[in-house]
């Protein structure tokens, strides 16, 4: 694979070049607001005045949105609002958990490869290329199909597919910063490699890494839905947006609201994470502050 096409692609995916800075700022605040709202929902799910997501309520079996049950009920009378809120928990946990895992492995790999270069870099890049040589979604499906469906395994699988993407971004940035004068200066002043990497190079990699990670969280949350639709999603007793969408998909002609609300939440979350990622990229990217 040509060296950094992945990066080219990520840049093509993001970077809204012609969005006015002001619009982007407002958008970023809205996006942040939505994410905070979601996190609060996820944390407060057990104490909110909503029915148990697993409880079947007779009156709302196959009933659309109505007072008291704003998102309606599903095929067996479970409250969709409650399921979406509990689903927020699982979806955020999987999304952020997977990327945390990817960062834990990907960051040191990318830093070492980009900073030391040479044979170490070649070995790391080959390993990353091998991981990238199976389409990411197929790899995630294969891993969860064979490891078994559980919150931990799904997070693990999505974390594994995030590793090469994150490591590449870190490596590409570390490569450029390792060449800069302040790094040479630090080395000349007698700083150890460890200190140079952690105190000089790494802080400069952080903005790009955070921006990419936010996009990666969005991708992981979406991928969780893919796993549900394919049939390797979370177990049935753990509601997630993905499993709810998969349920709604099977009753799309009669109970469209079951799929609609989790889809809406998913869309708002992805666009928020993308907006935040963009805002951070533009805020810190000297090239775009022209």
């Amino acid at each position, binding site marked *: *694979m*040509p*060296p*950094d*096409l992945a*990066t*080219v*692609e990520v*840049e*093509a*995916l993001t*970077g*809204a*070049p*012609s*969005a006015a800075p002001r619009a982007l700022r407002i958008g970023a605040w809205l996006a942040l607001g939505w994410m905070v709202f979601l996190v609060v929902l996820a944390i407060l799910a057990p104490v909110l005045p909503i029915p148990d997501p697993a409880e079947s309520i007779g009156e709302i079996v196959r009933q659309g949105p109505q007072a008291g049950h704003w998102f309606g009920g599903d095929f067996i009378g479970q409250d969709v609002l409650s399921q979406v809120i509990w689903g927020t928990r699982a979806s955020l946990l999987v999304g952020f958990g997977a990327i945390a895992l990817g960062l834990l492995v990907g960051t040191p790999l990318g830093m070492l490869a980009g900073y030391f270069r040479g044979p170490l870099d070649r070995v790391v890049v*080959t390993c990353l*290329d*091998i991981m990238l*040589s*199976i*389409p*990411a*979604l*197929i790899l995630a*499906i*294969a*891993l969860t*199909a*064979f*490891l*078994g469906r559980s919150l931990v395994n799904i997070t693990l699988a999505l974390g594994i597919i995030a590793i090469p993407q994150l490591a590449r971004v870190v490596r*590409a940035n570390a490569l450029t910063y390792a060449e800069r004068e302040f790094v040479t200066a630090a080395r000349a002043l007698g700083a150890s490699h460890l200190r140079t990497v952690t105190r000089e190079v790494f802080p400069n990699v952080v903005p790009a890494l955070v921006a990419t990670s936010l996009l990666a969280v*969005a991708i992981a949350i*979406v991928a969780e*839905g*893919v796993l549900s*639709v*394919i*049939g*390797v999603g979370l177990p049935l007793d753990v509601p997630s947006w993905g499993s709810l*969408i998969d349920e*709604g*998909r099977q009753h*799309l*002609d009669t109970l*469209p609201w079951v*799929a609609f609300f989790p*889809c809406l939440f*998913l*869309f708002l979350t*992805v*666009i928020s994470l*993308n907006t935040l990622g963009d805002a951070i990229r533009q805020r810190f990217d000297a090239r775009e502050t022209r």
Partner: protein
Amino acid sequence: MTRLMLRKCAQLVIVLVAVTFFVSALLRLTPNDSVDRIYPTATEEQKAAIRSDLGIDRPVISQYWDWLTNAVRGDLGRSLTAERLSVGEQIRNALPPTLQLVFLAQFLALLVAIPLGVWSASRANGVFDKTASISSFALLAIPNYVLGLVLAYVVGVRLQWLPTQGYVPIGDGPWDWLRYMILPTVTLAAAQIAIYQRLLRSDMITTLHSDFITTARAKGLSRARILWRHALRPSSISLLTIAAINLGALIGGAVVIEVIFQLPGMGKLIADAIFKNDYVTVQGCVAVIAIGYVLLNFVVDISYALLDPRTRRVTTAA
């Protein structure tokens, strides 16, 4: 050049060995013995027979070697369901719908994205460009299965314009085939349109700033001629590269879309096999997709280096 080729070929071999090894070892990933999980009622002898059939009672390397030699001859084993279908046969039947979907989507995406990208770049920051940019930003935030469900509901369930479930082989009637393919194709193409439009736009803006465009303008060539005949070709190299590489990624996207629209391709085969705990079929599908993707990347990589060495600039600038 020959050294580069040799290096690329060596890389290809390493990657192929790693990928096939991973795929053949998948059966061992199952935490409890997979055979126990699939055949809880089988006797110990039956289980032992299946294990030896799958090779998972032997050392990893010997299992890998057997799997690989069989796979090279096109034998990917037999499904773990009662019918014991040939995995290779199932995949041969499932490949056409998937490939048709992927190529149609790719074609549609380029067909729409190229004019959009050219037009956005020609009046960068104009009204059209801004609208296109915001729309593509929103489009990228819609997961393909969400878009698929929305289209299936609006066009299929509400308007009843197109069927939402199933497939007709192209040989049985091209018109019916197309009717079944439209919604999945649009779903799969949507995000690609946004990606390609953005990519072409930014490359095109760079090209439009170069000297030969100024010369063309000074010669008095028409705006359309400059855009389409002079600026498009040099701007489209990274677009075409990404498009080629994306063919593989599109298969990942096709998997979920096939399940939503019940298109009998690779994705549906995988989903059905997972539902039946048929691990051998899942393994075979993963093998075919992964190897196809590796070979595709290799071809793109090689032609990329052969066609225009200058394009390396694109990759190092990132």
